[in-house]
């Protein structure tokens, strides 16, 4: 009896997992099928599930119909340089928080965590005004700096957790052998902290690649639009070109999928290292 109950319980758990996964997968199936439809089929009432004709050429034509290459280039610039700047600034800060004693440490750490709470969305007027004062509206540099700044808290927190788990003795041994603090960090700490650095880099890169709100507030020039703004531009008063929305969406997801292997391998370890330290 008990064994049977257990079997029924397991069955329901698996059903739950499949239900959840299907629900998550559903929009991707819809995106894929509808990216291959033509205008007539998309706007058929009631809608069809499968395309009547499979228009694979949608994925080629979209590059001609909108400046998609420019959008991809801009997203890549924001993601690559935003991530680089963010991590380069976060590493020494996280190291200082993990290893050094200095006045105002607790206060600064608290302040840093506070910035995690205030996403750019809740202070968009302030950001708009300040960036206008810096003459950085309509500028990719402005978005890069903002992406780096608003991801500092997360990157420093995660790297601080990673650095704290590395034993001090290795570093001290290197110092005794005549390494400076900087070269000890570069030669000893950074290689050991690689999993944490990879995790932080991946997360910030995804945030940069998927950046939407800041560009929405600050970027007006078509040449400077990121992919998400490009997708948004499809939503018009005369009807949305859904087949293109979904083709671009799938294309935009591809680069991140390439990051997946790295993400899955390091995700669990990297996140827990930070979580334990809290």
């Amino acid at each position: 009896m008990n064994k049977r109950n257990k079997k029924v319980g397991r069955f329901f758990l698996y059903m739950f997992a499949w239900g959840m996964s299907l629900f998550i997968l559903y929009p991707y199936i819809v995106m894929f099928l509808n990216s291959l439809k033509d205008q007539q089929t998309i706007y058929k009432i009631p809608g069809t599930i499968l395309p009547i004709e499979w228009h694979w050429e949608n994925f080629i034509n979209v590059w001609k119909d909108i400046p998609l290459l420019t959008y991809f280039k801009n997203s890549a610039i924001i993601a690559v340089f935003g991530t680089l700047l963010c991590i380069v600034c976060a590493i020494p800060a996280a190291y200082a928080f993990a290893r050094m004693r200095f006045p105002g440490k607790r206060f600064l750490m608290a302040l840093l965590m506070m910035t995690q709470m205030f996403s750019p969305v809740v202070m968009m007027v302030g950001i708009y005004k300040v960036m206008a004062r810096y003459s950085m509206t309509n500028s990719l540099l402005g978005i890069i700096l903002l992406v780096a700044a608003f991801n500092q808290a997360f990157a420093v927190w995660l790297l601080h957790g990673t650095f704290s788990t590395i034993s001090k003795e290795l570093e001290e041994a290197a110092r005794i052998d005549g390494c400076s603090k900087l070269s000890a960090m570069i030669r000893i700490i950074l290689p050991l902290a690689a999993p944490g650095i990879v995790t932080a880099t991946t997360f910030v890169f995804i945030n940069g690649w998927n950046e939407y709100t800041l560009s929405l507030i600050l970027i007006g020039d078509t040449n400077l639009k990121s992919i998400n703004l490009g997708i948004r531009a499809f939503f018009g008063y005369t009807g949305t070109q859904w087949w293109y929305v979904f083709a671009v969406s799938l294309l935009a997801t591809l680069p991140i999928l390439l990051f997946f292997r790295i993400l899955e391998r390091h995700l669990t370890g990297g996140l827990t290292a930070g979580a334990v330290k809290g």
Partner: protein
Amino acid sequence: MKKDKEMKKKEHIRWKDLKAYIWLAPCLILLIAFVLAPVLEVFYLAFSKISAANIVKSFGTLENFQYLFHDRDFPRTMINTVIWTIAIVGISLVLSLIMALILNEEFRGRSFHRVILLLPWATSLLITAAAWKYILDYQYGALNALLIKLGIIDSGINFLGGATSSFIWMIIVGIIVTVPFMAFTLLSGLQSIPKDCYEAAYVDGVNFWNRLFHITLPLLKPSINVTIVLNVIYVFNSFAIVNTITNGAPANKTHTITTYLYYLAFGKNKYGASAALSIISFVILTIFAAVYMKMQMKEENE
């Protein structure tokens, strides 16, 4: 001579202290210029009289807050935001916990589920929201097409017709994008629980529910706490879903604070009122963080 040595020591410490700030400088400069400056600007704007051309006329007025409190859509927006945050975080937490418990077991198809859970990380919220906007469309939407094909309904349902039903659907979309993140955080927490914690329980024949409530959940508590705090902040600050699917329609009844902020600033050109609403959300988030920290400290003391 002795005094001199002491002085030297003191100075030495100070120089060392300064050194840490050299390491911190790049991070601090970024934060001051691009996070702190906008925060201060928000405070300045919120308490200033601002002309129609968005030029600050004078500082030191509560006009913007008065405008908000007399605004017809403000109470609805606040209530929506509370429902939005609690519903998404609460329901997602339960679903994610079950999902994490399942994924912590060895079974066929586990890696498939793990890959599916990673998918939403790769897609921007705008894209997911756009897909759901199409899925839920009254006339040509994919969900109605599916339900008609399956014979569940005869004609399309207007999912996004009313304020209540469209808000519920946006909450469902919010849950779908929140579960993967939560499930992974909780899964990593589950995997850090040592196996021998369960051994004694197995020997004594303790059943599943008792193991869950007396061993797993108490040990998982730190992960659950981190997840709740992070996700309350994320969900409170979420913007793209509502902005894309209804953008407040019908009649500004489905706004949350973030989309209403955007509407005030860039739709209605009310920079002051938008900044005032920013201040209100700062206050809400700070109170939440303070209460939560206090609760946690109390627990640790007990």
